[in-house]
């Protein structure tokens, strides 16, 4: 019986080899076949070949992909880094990696180990892979024209210092990151010195630090992503010409958690995003010439916290619904404009019938000042006494910024 099985396996392997030779450029990796490892297949392969990997657990240490090949997994063959290695290290262009499961990269404090690491690689496709416990998941350095699509990356990060990012890009351009599902890393998506890229339709959740984090990455577009329950939300810094549209930021809770943190961002566009139940919906520091329109801020602690060093920002046609505080700021001066937003806290009327309230709305409450200076008073939130204080302040502003006012508050929620 045993002999018979061995015989049939051999026959299968022989058939595979025969097939490989027939349809030129296809190599089959099978635990019981003639080619039993990906490394071996890569040694056999030439540029343009296709390597099909059958199910099994492959422990090959670090595999260097230095040829322009297509590596395709059948039913997610597992490549195990045994907590010691970067699993796939791509050093060639036009490489495709599909349908693999990559696991157990292991924490390193000296090198940026990753599940799939691309260095100086261009025109690659990383698609539909599963990454488990990979320290860094997919890591691109000095690469371009690459697509990272539909990967499922799950880590088990516990501490920031001993964890890596799920998708990490450094010095890249024209990269598409689309439809990936990411959780349990330090940052979900991290970009530094990345330009002209598109980040679309990803779900990044339960990461220790940021769901999305980028710096010095001009001219990129972020669309239809979901960032939820991340330690500190989404942080974007030192960048211009950013477009953030139709994203959802929700349930980012903590003393330093933000739906979206803008630091030194200029000439950018933030539209149609939904900020739901974040400690701070949108935080802006040193950011200027940003248009923030048609976003929805619902049930956040502070919908918008804008520092006085943010100038010429324009908030328009946003919905502010049932937030504990609509707007907070650190100064009586403000250099940003609020106009035509809908505020659920607005109690004015519209006699002129133009759809906008006749009385301006002051979104900064006196109580937010009190809480800032005496945090334990937070327990009085929504007390009638506090509402009366706020009312008095709105009638006669003495501490809140006089110029931070929406003179055209919409009467109806903006659809």
């Amino acid at each position: 019986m045993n002999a018979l099985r061995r015989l049939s396996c051999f026959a299968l392997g022989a058939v595979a080899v025969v097939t490989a030779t027939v349809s030129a450029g296809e190599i089959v990796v099978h635990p019981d076949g003639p080619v039993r490892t990906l490394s071996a297949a890569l040694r056999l392969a030439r540029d343009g070949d296709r390597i099909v990997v059958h199910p099994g657990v492959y422990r090959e240490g670090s595999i260097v992909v230095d040829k322009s090949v297509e590596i395709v997994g059948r039913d997610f063959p597992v490549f195990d880094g045994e907590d010691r290695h970067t699993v796939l290290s791509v050093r060639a262009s036009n490489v495709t990696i599909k349908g693999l499961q990559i696991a157990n990269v292991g924490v390193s404090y000296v090198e940026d180990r990753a599940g799939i690491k691309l260095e100086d690689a261009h025109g690659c496709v990383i698609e539909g892979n599963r990454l488990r416990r990979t320290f860094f998941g997919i890591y691109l350095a000095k690469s371009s024209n690459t697509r990272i699509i539909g990967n499922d990356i799950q880590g088990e990060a516990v501490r920031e210092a001993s964890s890596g990012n799920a998708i990490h890009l450094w010095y890249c351009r024209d990269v598409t990151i689309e439809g990936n599902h990411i959780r349990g890393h330090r940052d979900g998506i991290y970009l530094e010195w990345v330009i002209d890229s598109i980040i679309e339709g990803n779900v990044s959740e339960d990461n220790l630090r940021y769901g999305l984090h980028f710096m010095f990455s001009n001219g990129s577009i972020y669309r239809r992503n979901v960032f939820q329950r991340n330690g500190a939300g989404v942080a974007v810094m030192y960048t211009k010409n950013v477009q953030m549209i139709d994203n959802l930021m929700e349930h980012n809770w903590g003393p330093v958690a933000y739906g979206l943190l803008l630091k030194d961002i200029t000439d950018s566009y933030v539209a149609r995003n939904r900020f739901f139940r974040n400690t701070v919906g949108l935080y802006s520091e040193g950011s200027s010439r940003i248009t923030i329109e048609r976003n929805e801020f619902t049930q956040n602690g502070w919908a918008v916290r804008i520092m006085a060093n943010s100038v010429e920002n324009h908030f328009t046609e946003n919905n502010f619904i049932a937030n504990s505080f609509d707007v907070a700021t650190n100064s009586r001066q403000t250099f940003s404009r609020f106009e035509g937003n809908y505020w659920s806290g607005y109690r004015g009327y519209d006699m002129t019938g133009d759809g906008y309230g006749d009385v301006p709305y002051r979104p900064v409450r006196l109580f937010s000042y009190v809480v800032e200076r005496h945090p334990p008073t937070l327990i009085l939130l929504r007390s009638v006494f506090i509402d009366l204080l706020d009312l008095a302040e709105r009638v006669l502003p003495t501490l809140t910024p006089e110029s931070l006012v929406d003179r055209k508050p919409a009467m109806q929620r903006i659809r």
Partner: protein
Amino acid sequence: MKTTLKILKYEFHNVIRNRWMLAYALFFLVISEALFQFGGDASKVMLSLMNVTLLIIPLVSLVFGTMYAYNSREFIELLLSQPVDRKWLFVGMHAGLALPLALAFVIGVTMPFVIHGVGEAGNTPTVVALIGAGIFLTLIFVALALLIAVVNEDKGRGFGVSILLWLFFAVIYDGLILLATLTFREYPMEQPVIVMTLFNPIDLARIALMLQFDISALMGYTGAVFEEFFGSVTGMVVSFGSLVVWTAFPFLLALRRFIQKDF
């Protein structure tokens, strides 16, 4: 016990036939429905209802409760000349007064949510907490109303006391907390502030609701005591637990006085 149910039945009938009772139910119905019509958003409706609940329920329970207790003096005397135990008579009176009030609130508030939905999926617990807080406040302030009516012989005086008590719990008390926090700002005030809120049922209800509405803001707080209090089920357990104590305390006090009282 059987007598209590009978008294409850008559009291209930008598109270729901009161025109003010109908007005009260309609008030909540109209407010919630109007909020839906004008605002449209379930979150906003709940928030406005929270303010209404915290203000109106204590006020109406106190004033209506006190007035009703004075006006049913004859009813009580009639019942006391019958073979009825005072203890069970009082229990029946409290329930007969509190149940219709709570029912009016629950129906008035729930109907529009049934019609329009609760919006976000996460809003259901908030609506439940809102209704729970409303029921607790009704029970507590009806008991306080009965206490006022039992202690004060004079109707006008009782009315004054109930208005003052409402003003104290609804507004003044929080002013005192704010004052204390600002006065002792050099000291860690988290724990004292939490303890202070335990002595005001409206604050307790407010905190229970805040844990639903404003958890996002509360999580932004950096302080061990608050984090512990707000960040887990502790806050919910403490606030609702204290509301249970509050429900029992004025009730038992009023019961004691009622048993001793001369009619």
